[in-house]
């Protein structure tokens, strides 16, 4: 009992081939879209690679780029096959490779589904990379005279301004590191000496944040220094003050930014997968309808098309039987060889 059998006359076959050719063109454009999304994602990761400790995995965007290119190639071949299927002389040369081509398409669709799953799952390793990278970035904020780290201050400032965030988890992260370089500290002043002697490592720690943490929506000029000291500023209560500096941590901000991007890409890849499955089924119909012509000489005769020759269960058992037979065949060969060897020796 064939799966989803459909009767085809010449007109229907021609219409199927034409529609399928058009759908292949859309699939090529979808492949280009996947490729460009992979490229875009790769560039976005590169842009912030300093904050990811230069350690981020480019696996997912590379896979997207590869899959996009492969999709373009397979769909171009499929389109050519459809185009030739209307002419029985041209179609003959494709007949032999059509079955392996369809199996290739099937594996490609599995690959697409796996890619989409990876897009959704990449959020977790990204979160860890960002946490580590931001922590180090903040540590090197003051090292604007150290080669290799001199742009960290600018990168962090621009990032905090752009993503409207402050610190790693929140603004208090800035209280735990020295972000003012020693070059700009007057070590003869009492205040500096007090702060340095107040902690074990001799770091100049203070309850202040860089200017890039300031929120422009605040009604009052930004309070960056002595944030936790209510008496240092007129009419100020740091427990109730909400708009002064950004409340969100940069790790959260970046993860939600990249997470959103990856979710969108994952959904698009799933839609492309559906399109690919549709064209694969269409091509199978074209293949079967052209191989079952009632009268092989007459191109206008009727034919039947199906997705699978037998039902799913029977096809599966067939495949298993084939594989077992191949395995047994090898074993029998080996035994025969051993016997031959034994008899010879």
């Amino acid at each position, binding site marked *: 009992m064939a799966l989803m059998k459909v009767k085809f006359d010449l007109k229907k076959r021609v219409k199927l081939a034409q529609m399928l050719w058009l759908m292949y063109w859309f699939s090529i454009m979808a492949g280009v879209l996947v490729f460009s999304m992979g490229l875009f994602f790769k560039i976005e990761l590169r842009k912030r690679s300093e904050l990811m400790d230069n350690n981020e995995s480019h696996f997912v965007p590379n896979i997207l780029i590869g899959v996009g290119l492969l999709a373009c190639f397979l769909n171009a071949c499929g389109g050519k096959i459809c185009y030739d299927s209307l002419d029985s002389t041209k179609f003959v040369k494709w007949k032999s490779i059509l079955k392996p081509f369809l199996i290739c398409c099937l594996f490609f669709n599995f690959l697409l589904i796996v890619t989409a799953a990876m897009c959704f799952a990449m959020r977790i390793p990204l979160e860890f990379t960002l946490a580590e990278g931001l922590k180090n970035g903040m540590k090197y904020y003051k090292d604007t*005279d150290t080669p290799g780290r001199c742009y960290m*201050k600018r990168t962090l400032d621009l990032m905090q301004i752009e993503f409207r965030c402050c610190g790693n988890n929140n603004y208090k992260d800035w209280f735990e590191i020295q972000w003012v370089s020693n070059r700009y500290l007057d070590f003869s002043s009492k205040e500096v000496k007090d702060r340095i002697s107040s902690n074990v490592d001799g770091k100049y720690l203070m309850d202040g944040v860089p200017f*890039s943490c300031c929120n*422009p929506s605040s009604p009052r000029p930004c309070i960056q220094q002595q944030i936790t000291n209510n008496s240092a500023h007129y009419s100020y209560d740091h427990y109730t003050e909400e708009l002064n500096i950004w409340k969100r941590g940069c790790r959260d901000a970046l993860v939600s930014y990249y997470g959103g991007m990856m979710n969108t890409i994952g959904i698009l890849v799933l839609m492309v997968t559906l399109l690919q499955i549709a064209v694969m089924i269409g091509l199978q119909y074209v293949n079967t309808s052209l191989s079952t012509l009632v009268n092989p000489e007459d191109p206008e005769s009727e034919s039947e098309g199906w997705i699978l020759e037998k039902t799913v269960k029977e096809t599966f058992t067939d495949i298993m039987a084939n594989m077992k037979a191949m395995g047994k065949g090898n074993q029998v060969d080996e035994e025969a060889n051993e016997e031959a060897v034994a008899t010879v020796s």
Partner: protein
Amino acid sequence: MVLLKIKFPFQKRVRLAQGLWLLSWVAMFSGAITFAIGVFLKTELHRRSEVMHSMDIHIVPNLLMAVGLASVGINICAGKVCQDSLDTSRFPRWKTFLPPFFCFSVFITSLLLVAMILSFALQPSLEESLKIGLKNGIRFYKDTDTPGRCFQKETIDRLQIEFQCCGNTNYRDWFEVQWISSRYLDFTSKEVKDRVRSNVDGRYLLDGVPFSCCNPASPRPCIQYSLLDNSAHYNYEYQTEELNLYNRGCRQALVSYYMGLMNTIGPCVLFDFLLQMTILVSLRYLQTAMEGVIGQENVEIETEGYILEKGVKETLLETKEKVKKLLQFAQVGDASATTPGTQPDEEKPATA
């Protein structure tokens, strides 16, 4: 003397019609792009409308949008005329429509040139408008509790961050206004009282700037306050310090931004103008060449095409005469409406 006469054999006419039809499609897209460019420019100007005092400069995007839409219509007509020109039975119906159509199209296309010229000529007006707008913005920076002005602070801060600029002409503009609201000043403290008393208007002026003037590329944490006091900060000299704050004024930054936009748009608009004029000239040739064919039995004869039947001067004189006649007819129409009363009176005495 005919202006720029060209001979048109049948094949050449057909080729002209086909090429023109294709070109009219291209020009239609070009017109749509001009419209889109106008919309984009208008949006960009509107985004910063809070720091602009007058809306004079908006005439440039308005012109571009109007011309873009009109040229789409003109090119659809031109395409239709080309299609019909290949069929001599259908072409005559365009006869009365084409001359006013040409005048209208030439006028619309020349508006593109006007828009380009205006975009350069209005630069001083834009600068003046920005100067006043920014001055007001800086003055009302502290009024975050006054309805209608409560977003000035956010607007100015975001502007300074995005365009990497500080103040109107430079950062010293902030020294001349009180940008800290009195709500956040402790009037019992000596420092505040000193500052308020030190100037005639009783304003709290200081040599400090808002945080949005800070330059992230500076190697040291941003110095916002006591900018002119070298002793207030360790290892600091304001005369040589270049990277601490943005050096550029916001007026100059915005003017360069908009001029840059218009300089990019200029070549596109010029291209559209040239394309449109080419189409109009070719359509005129096609029209005049086809006029020689209408009424003839053999469609494949050679005809002549020209831009103007007589020389430029003569055509202008003729047009003047035509317009005068039209006006005279209008006047005579009025005069004859008033004279019928006198004529029967003259006749009556003759018969009586």
